[in-house]
């Protein structure tokens, strides 16, 4: 990605987080309280097949993860998704430790407490210590907390969909019949301004608390950043922006538990194999940058565990469900994935070949934080320190 464009995205990311904080009067955590905490970052990517990643022919798509990171990793070679292989259900299952079977479009909240709720309720953790930042359009803010009476939004996560603001601005302009082009920018500008001036920033995806209007200074800065973005001619990837917002959240709030989802590879649904592989390569690069960031931030260095996993694979070549396009086949290609773990919480670098399930992740997180896990917990995964 060209430097100037990334700089613009960085500014936009910083401003979005700034806006969130300003609306709630939140400040960065003190260094003392951070020091005591173990941190966990979970990165869930969309559907990626083993053959395009951790297989001989796929390694070229993931040079970062299969290179130096792998040598230091606890690697689960056979991580299974035995639930509904859709995005909302899979992420709900990972976060609750039970196979969730909800509306595919996220109209219902999980039916068991999410790890955000377990963690915050048991440790009385502040809201700004638990975040869910997603690229995925299939998500909704209901992923942040469950319908369980004793938990719910009061203990939920901050849920953010950074790219939605950009999409909304552009799509709204298009819906009004105005095209985004440097030659007719004056016709687009009012649409973007109108969106930024709305009182309810649905596009930001903030799920918690009151949604306030942007203050004029922040508004102006975001407007300028988007203005610059519109001027560029290269594609903007959602995952790039999601990463930058995540990085900003880490710098500013140093959350103890952060889940990030990337989804550029989901372009596979539209049948472009080359763009799908491009999405995998982007994620590989961003995971590398994320780990470098963890090692560079005092709040994270030496006390952070990173878990990276695909939500599922994709369907087999030649399947009636059209192969890599989709992820709904009941096959090993779709259900069997992997997980790469790095950092403070792992006992030692090793490869665990025995089959494990994604619902074991939530009890493992509980184990790492030393709190009680889900009521119907599966066994925690092996290879982690308590």
């Amino acid at each position, binding site marked *: 990605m060209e430097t100037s464009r990334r700089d613009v995205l960085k500014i936009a990311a910083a401003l979005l987080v700034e806006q969130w904080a300003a609306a709630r009067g939140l400040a960065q955590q003190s260094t003392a309280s951070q020091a005591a905490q173990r941190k966990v970052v979970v990165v869930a990517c969309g559907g990626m097949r083993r053959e395009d990643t951790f297989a001989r022919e796929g390694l070229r798509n993931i040079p970062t993860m299969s290179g130096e990171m792998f040598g230091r990793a606890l690697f689960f070679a056979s991580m299974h998704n035995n639930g509904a292989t859709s995005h909302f259900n899979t992420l709900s299952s990972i976060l609750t430790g039970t196979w969730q079977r*909800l509306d595919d479009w996220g109209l219902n909240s999980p039916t068991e407490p999410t790890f955000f709720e377990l963690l915050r309720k048991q440790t009385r953790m502040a809201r700004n210590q638990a975040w869910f930042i997603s690229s995925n359009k299939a998500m909704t803010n209901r992923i942040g907390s469950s319908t369980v009476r004793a938990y719910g939004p009061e203990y939920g996560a901050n849920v953010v969909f950074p790219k939605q603001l*950009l999409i909304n601005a552009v799509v709204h302009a*298009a819906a009004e019949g105005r095209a985004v082009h440097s030659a007719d920018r004056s016709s687009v500008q009012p649409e973007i301004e109108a969106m930024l001036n709305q009182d309810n920033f649905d596009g930001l995806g903030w799920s918690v608390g009151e949604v306030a209007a942007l203050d004029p200074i922040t508004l102006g800065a975001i407007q300028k950043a988007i203005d610059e973005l519109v001027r560029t*001619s290269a594609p903007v990837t959602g995952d790039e*922006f999601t990463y930058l917002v995540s990085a900003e959240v880490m710098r500013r709030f140093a959350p103890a538990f952060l889940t990030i989802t990337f989804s550029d590879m989901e372009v596979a649904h539209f049948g*472009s194999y080359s763009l799908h592989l491009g999405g995998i390569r982007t994620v590989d690069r961003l995971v590398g940058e994320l780990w470098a960031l963890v090692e560079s931030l005092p709040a994270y260095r030496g006390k952070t565990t990173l878990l990276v996993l695909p939500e599922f694979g994709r369907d087999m070549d030649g399947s*009636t469900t059209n192969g*890599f*396009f989709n992820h709904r086949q009941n096959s090993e290609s779709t259900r069997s994935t992997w997980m790469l773990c790095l950092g403070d919480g792992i006992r030692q670098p090793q490869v665990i070949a025995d089959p494990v399930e994604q619902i074991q992740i939530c009890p493992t997180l509980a184990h790492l934080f030393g709190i009680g896990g889900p009521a119907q917990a599966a066994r925690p995964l092996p290879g982690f320190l308590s």
Partner: protein
Amino acid sequence: MKRFGAYADLAAAAQAPHPPEPSHSLVERLPVTMRPGLNQQLQGWESLFPYERRRLLGFLRGIESYSPAEWQSLTASLVQLEQRMGVAGWNFSEQQDTMENASHLARSEHYVEWREKVQSVFQAVEAAAEKASPQSPRLPRLVLTVLPQNLPVEPPEKWKPWDARGCAYRVAGNAAGLDARIVQGQPGMPGLAAHAPAGGADLWLIDAGDELPRLDAAAAEQLHYKRLLPFRDRFLEEVNKMPKDLAVSDKTLEGVRHQNWERWSPDELKAQPRLRNFLVDLFLSGNGALIYPSAFVEWASSEALRRARPRALVARLGMRAKPKLFTGIAIFENQQKINTLPEVEDPQGSAIDALELARYIWLAAQRYPEKEQTIGLCIAEHHNAVYLIAPKELAPRWPADKPVPPEEIAGWLAQAMAG
């Protein structure tokens, strides 16, 4: 076992304007979750291709062949499973396949078991129907894929293997034009239409651009992505209005399905309601058919093979544009409307896509019993080469080290297709 009554002569019944009288009541005998697809086919009888009609009628004949006791024994475990799944409490349409139906089923903890049981009933009924069916002659079939000159694909020797029988040959001279020669024929050699009875949907030409020769509408089902632009734009607009709510989405999709699409169709589709409906169903089923030309070609080919089982299918893949600003994050949107900067072609990416999708078309043809007598020929124009998969008894004896003239390839193919 009963005699077949209205379904005794499947070929004649398939040509009738309506399905035979007892069809709906036969569907009623099925477990609830098996009814929507069959009811939808009966209601859309006029939109079915000849093969689909024969298969549907054959299936109904299979149901009719069971005695009540045999039928109860065959379906009891699926009916019990539906009770355990709580199907009666769902808003489940028995009249057509809906997104809500699919969502209920896919979310059920019994989904995998349900699929197995449905498959088991389906296979038993089809087997019962086939027992009494005359064997149709095993005529050779063709799946011809074309990777155009402007796509820099890897040479065939480096491709992922499509089939253990596959062989690469160099073409003497220019491979561009070989597809037209095969489709239209050459002096003393008939074109593909000679092997496809008119109106039988036995020959399909599916094109990412507008390059394949155009034949008489009665001779072939023809879809040219480039010529479908107004249709696609309008369709994308309608689909993007769809709310994120399953129940509402089904109504919206139903509305889209029943719109008058004739006015948005290119001339060659205006008088072809069946092919137009195929296109509507194709676009509604996603898989990138509205977004990328090669994805359209692949998915249309796959659906044509499934629904029409043609003797010959010609699929020409093509170039896509690079994603523009913002379309990388909202790719389902119409990128021409969102950003009026000129489109920039992506030859490298398009080549990777086209090669993978050409292989997918071949793999789609491998799902059906006709695979045994199907010839696969992929023309790689960029390398003046072909990749050939031929049944042993039809395989040509071309030396691997000597280029083959295009007329020899076309001549061999015409002879092979003549059976």
